[in-house]
């Protein structure tokens, strides 16, 4: 981890040079490849500061994906609603106006603090699950890292040479407008199928995987 900054710059250029011709044939991916992406992005080509467990020597990460940020909208709205509710109603003045009697201020402080702390923990945990549930495309395989909760962790990977078909689909208004969708990777029967759910730019992702498969077969 310590020398990630120094080595990858030249390595990234080599990788880009390797993948660029493949992607250029489809007119995808390359124009939007940044030299450096934020670790918090949901579409990170050639991530320089990210490693994963069981990475083989010489294996290169080409793309790291997370679910589109729009998928977090439901719980973000829930948290905002709880915050607004607590600010509006969980105070002595509002309580008196609504119910006609006063409760001790200390009680409101307790309840508000407890609510804010629980909201923080909930928000932080949801963020962590979004952050750590990733899909990784390397030059050899596809990896799906899933964290359901503290005790349940699922890591599945599929080598490029066993992939039979790559398709993607976008359905609904939000997916079309925000350009995200599912990439479905079908493998031989004995292998695990990997689905990239609600990832940004599914067309580009499917194109890149197809290109990598073709490159491996040549």
């Amino acid at each position, binding site marked *: 981890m310590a020398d990630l900054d120094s080595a990858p710059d030249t390595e990234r250029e080599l990788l880009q040079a390797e993948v660029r011709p493949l992607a250029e044939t489809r007119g995808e991916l390359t124009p939007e490849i940044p030299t450096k992406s934020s*670790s*918090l992005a949901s579409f990170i080509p050639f991530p320089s500061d990210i490693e994963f*467990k069981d990475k083989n020597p010489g294996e290169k990460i080409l793309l790291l994906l997370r679910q589109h940020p729009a998928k977090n909208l439901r719980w973000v709205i829930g948290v905002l609603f709880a915050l607004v509710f607590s600010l509006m109603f969980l105070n002595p003045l509002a309580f008196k106006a609504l119910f006609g009697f006063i409760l001790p201020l200390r*009680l409101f402080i*307790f309840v508000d*603090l407890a609510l804010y*702390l629980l909201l923080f923990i909930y928000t932080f945990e949801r963020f*962590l699950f979004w952050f750590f549930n990733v899909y990784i495309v390397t030059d050899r395989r596809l990896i799906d890292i899933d964290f359901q909760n503290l005790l349940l*962790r699922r890591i599945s990977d599929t080598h490029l040479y066993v992939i039979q078909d790559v398709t993607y689909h976008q359905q609904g208004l939000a997916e079309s407008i925000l350009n995200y969708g599912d990439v479905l990777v079908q493998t031989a029967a004995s292998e695990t199928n990997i689905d990239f759910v609600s990832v940004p730019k599914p067309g580009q992702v499917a194109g890149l995987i197809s290109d990598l498969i073709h490159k491996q077969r040549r």
Partner: protein
Amino acid sequence: MNPDLWNVELSTVFIVFSKFLAFCILVLYLAFSIIVWRQIQTMARVLRVRVVGYFKVAILAHAALAAITFFALLVMS
């Protein structure tokens, strides 16, 4: 029963109850913080990302702040 005595007993019960409530919330919150801390460690072992350090600092700082706040409330009440 003397009504004044009844009021005094009620307020005592309320103070004890609020202290107990604060203590329960504090314990619950610290337990949650430990669980989240463990989650971060487990996840970071699989996916090594540099920003994980900031997450740990955030959860530690927030847990410490929560503990200080609740102890202050316990002492005040």
